[in-house]
């Protein structure tokens, strides 16, 4: 079946089997490898991306379900050559070791801050509770999200 998904503002059309998972459409058909493919069982959360602005685990959604919808991946965070504060936060606070969980952590972190600009540590930990860092670097991931909360983009930069 033909599926068209607007990914980071660009429509991507592919002929895929209906059973194709969204994570594979994004990585293989759209060629965007920033979204990682991990446990396949909606436990690890490295495949988190946004569908219509809401984070989902893309290993547990069919590409067909996203047909006609807007997807945002980790590649869509940076705007005009400027890293999103959530990305900068992971740099500043050493929020990654091996980097495998990072795209999902950043997509969830950005979504949290969009809905709750000043989350407590408990709220951050709750929000990433469906995502696993096997380097166990949670302390720095939380610090990275806190850094991003403290350094929102100014309007001049986003304009």
């Amino acid at each position: 079946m033909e599926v068209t998904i607007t990914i980071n503002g660009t429509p991507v059309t592919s002929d895929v089997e209906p059973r194709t998972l969204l994570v594979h459409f994004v990585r293989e058909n759209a060629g965007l490898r920033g979204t990682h493919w991990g446990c396949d069982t909606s436990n690890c959360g490295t495949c988190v991306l946004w569908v219509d602005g809401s984070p989902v685990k893309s290993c547990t959604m069919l590409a067909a379900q996203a047909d006609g919808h807007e997807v945002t991946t980790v590649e869509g965070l940076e705007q005009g050559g400027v890293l999103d504060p959530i990305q900068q936060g992971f740099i500043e606070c050493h929020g990654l070791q091996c980097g495998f969980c990072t795209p999902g952590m950043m997509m969830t972190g950005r979504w949290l801050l969009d809905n709750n600009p000043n989350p407590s540590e408990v709220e951050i930990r709750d929000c990433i509770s469906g995502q696993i860092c096997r380097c166990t670097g949670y302390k720095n991931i939380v610090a990275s999200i806190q850094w991003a909360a403290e350094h929102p983009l100014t309007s001049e930069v986003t304009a």
Partner: protein
Amino acid sequence: MQTPAPVEYARATSVGDAIALLEKHGDEARLLAGGHSLLPMMKLRLARPEILIDLNDLDELRGIRIEGDEIVVGAMVTHAEILDSPVLAEHYSIFREAEKVIADPIVRNKGTIGGSMCQADPSEDLSAVGSALKGSVIIQGSGGKRSLALREFHEGPYETKVGDAEILTEVRFPIRPGAGSAYEKVERRVGDWPVASAGAFVVVAGGVVKDCGIGLTAVGAEHFCAPDAEAFLIGKAPTEENLSAAAKLAADACTPYADQRGPVDYKLHLAHELTLRVLRRAVASSQGA
């Protein structure tokens, strides 16, 4: 790599359209709501439908509203929407307390109440909530709609009274002025299925329990409820002694299995203790209201 077996995909344009598709494809069709149980089961070949009928475009199945003396929750309302609903929170704190411990925030964005009920997992938390509150469901087929009490909804694990060409469209909960409610869950790790969970509502008036409902999940409680414990409490003062006796009756009616989440005696202990805790808090909340 886990991928579902080949399957066809159709998007329903209305509830009527979905029912027509179900009638056309028979029991080889499955309705796709949040997909967070169905797709993993398809990956494991525990489910192998020939066609998925996607309900996600059906706005008629969304929304939480008050209708008369009932709260009506559309079948496609997500866990996240239940967690955030001021209407549900105003009448029953059990919803927030249960939803906070169902899966994780990302999964809660997709999973739906209708999907949870129809999946009928014997460890489903929302099934215990629905049974505790003595809710009902609306089931629609080409012949029309019927209402069914949630305490009569489950045939057994993963089996419900929804027919092959029927759709669960709404879940309804009676509003009970003055009711207090609570939910408690013990899980091995955040977001996991429960080792055991209990929920309850209690209406205390004139110093006695006027009405109550007790729900349990993951411990083999028939229809996720504890009717003997409820009957014991009605008309009695909500003393610690009476609540404890009711909690014991609730646990006595449970038949849990030993599995990787714990042995039978531990689960029975949890059924007793969690029931007692939710009864205490529901009573306090009702008396404070």
